């Protein structure tokens, strides 16, 4: 599918100077969708429109946001929450910070509309602690929105009340997992919860809660403004909308780019990012954060950045944080570092994850350091099988997938190391 990306005008981060300032945002149509929502839409109408638009969660799992909202039970007069996920810790992902910096009010407007749609009483914006600079920006934007009456009691005279607070993380990848995030917000160690109960039933402080990614919520005002049909006409039909691609690694112009979903990976590398550094060949691409299976350079023809195309190719969209590796990359080294990350970040509650991530890393260090044996490759795959789908949260899967698919798709790199080991003569 060809996308006319060269003529695409960014919607999430339009590149208007000083758009982060509330006055500039308002001058450019900001908070108009909130006014329209409060004046002329019912909560059900908002949920239905967002559901029809099929905004697929930008936090990694790609779940339809409106459908998730519809799981919230009927209001019972007690508090209800949104936890907006700005933990942004999956390696290769650095896009939500662009929203905090360049268009925070679009996110705030989207979160308030979502709050109205789900009868929410407070939104907690969870931002990773390392993003101190961006936390300050977000706090300023929220303060300004309060001052203008977009947050607080009786918003714009509608009778709808909503509070919004920033909560700073303190260094723990696992807190991006939605139930760990809630534990962290409740002032505890970030141990993921067993599901069910699901957050919509029993979330923050035991109350109905919806967790959405920052970028997901920033899409909401676009849908309210132009309608679900318009939104679905952008990008890939089954995975529509604008998306912030964070591209890093061996390309000439890495960075965050906003284009429709469904962009061809090769076009992103060659045209958008100015090609490979030093004119080298692509060896591997991790499409959507380090937990998504890497694709071989010779597997990329016709592969596009949307859920269907990537599934067919053998990977996932994840966070659209694309890591590009050139022909000189040693996949053993690269995979060891990824495994080190998941080992370091495992919270330790489940044995297959706590011990599995450790064994994966140890085995990879053994291979990396020239002490590996052929059977270690099978051991790695076997460990993956024992980890996948057997734990409280998906971190164990996130740790297993890159190992499984790097070892199978780049087996020659591993075999070469293993054949040259200190044991080779034996």
């Amino acid at each position, binding site marked *: 599918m060809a996308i006319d990306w060269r003529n695409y005008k960014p919607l999430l981060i339009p590149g208007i100077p000083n758009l982060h300032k509330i006055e500039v945002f308002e001058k450019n149509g900001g908070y108009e969708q909130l006014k329209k929502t409060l004046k002329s839409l019912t909560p059900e109408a908002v949920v239905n429109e967002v559901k029809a638009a099929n905004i697929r969660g930008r936090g990694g799992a790609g779940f339809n946001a409106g459908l998730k909202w519809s799981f919230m039970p009927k209001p019972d007069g007690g508090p209800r929450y949104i936890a907006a996920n700005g933990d942004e810790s999956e*390696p290769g*992902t*650095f896009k939500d910070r662009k929203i905090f910096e360049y268009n925070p009010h679009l996110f705030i407007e989207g979160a308030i509309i979502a709050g109205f749609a789900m009868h929410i009483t407070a939104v907690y914006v969870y931002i990773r602690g390392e993003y101190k600079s961006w936390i300050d920006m977000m706090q300023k934007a929220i303060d300004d929105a309060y001052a203008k009456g977009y947050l607080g009691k009786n918003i714009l005279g509608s009778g709808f009340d909503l509070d919004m607070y920033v909560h700073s993380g303190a260094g723990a990848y696992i807190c991006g997992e939605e139930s760990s995030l809630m534990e962290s917000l409740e002032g505890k*160690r970030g141990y993921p919860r067993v599901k069910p109960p699901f957050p919509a039933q029993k979330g923050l*402080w035991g109350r109905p809660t919806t967790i959405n990614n920052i970028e997901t919520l920033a899409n909401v005002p676009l849908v309210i403004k132009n309608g679900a049909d318009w939104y679905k006409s952008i990008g890939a039909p089954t995975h529509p909308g604008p998306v912030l691609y964070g591209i890093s690694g061996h390309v000439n112009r890495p960075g965050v780019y906003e284009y429709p979903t469904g962009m061809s990976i090769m076009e992103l590398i060659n045209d958008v990012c100015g090609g490979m550094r030093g004119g080298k060949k692509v060896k591997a691409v991790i499409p959507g954060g380090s937990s998504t299976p890497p694709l071989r350079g010779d597997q990329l023809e016709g592969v596009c950045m949307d859920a269907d195309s990537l599934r067919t190719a053998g990977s996932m969209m994840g966070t659209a944080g694309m890591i590009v590796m050139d022909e000189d990359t040693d996949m053993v080294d690269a995979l060891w570092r990824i495994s080190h990350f998941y080992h370091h970040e495992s919270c330790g509650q489940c044995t297959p994850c706590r011990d599995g991530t450790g064994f994966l890393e140890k085995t990879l260090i053994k291979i990396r350091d020239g002490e590996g044996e052929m059977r270690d490759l099978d051991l790695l795959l076997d460990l993956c099988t024992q980890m996948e789908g057997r734990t409280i949260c998906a971190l164990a899967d996130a740790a297993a997938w890159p190992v499984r698919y790097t070892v199978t798709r780049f087996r020659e790199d591993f075999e070469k190391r293993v054949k040259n080991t200190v044991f080779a003569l034996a």
Partner: protein
Amino acid sequence: MEMTYEFSKEDLAEIEKIKAKYPDKKSPVMPVLWLAQEKFGHVEPEVQQLVARTLDLPAAHVYGVVSFYTQYYGKKMGKYVLDVCTTTSCQLCGGYEILHYIEDKLGIKAGETTKDGLFSIQSVECLGACGYAPMMQITNGVYCNHLTKEKVDTIIDGLRAGRMPEFESIPMPQHLDESTNKIG
């Protein structure tokens, strides 16, 4: 000499504001630990006890939180903590070379602090700046992007003279006007 840690009247007023954001008494522990760490430079056990007393929580709970999150300094660190990212994108772009260069320059290894107490080095996980690799963060604050050995020299010389690098805004490449390199 035993140092005693106390919150000032202003701190306590700030803590009241923090508490008002949450519906129960356990939840404010993270923001209050942040406040304490900003004030004292660390959250060693004595500070943890102060936080526990102030929020009327068991000290064991506060310790549990401090030890779960990597950004809380459960023991004193150097005045400047250099957190060098070595995760995948940074690894691919020379993150380890930068880490080793800083280690050699300061004569300490990652995880250590210089004798004068000025610098600590840590090798850390992805900081969400992958497109601007290699990079580091200084003492949970400013991000330094696109590091080179020369840039590291300038930053460390600056820190020795008490100059913290400034926040660097990195616009999206597609918004840059090619002639001015500014947004618009």
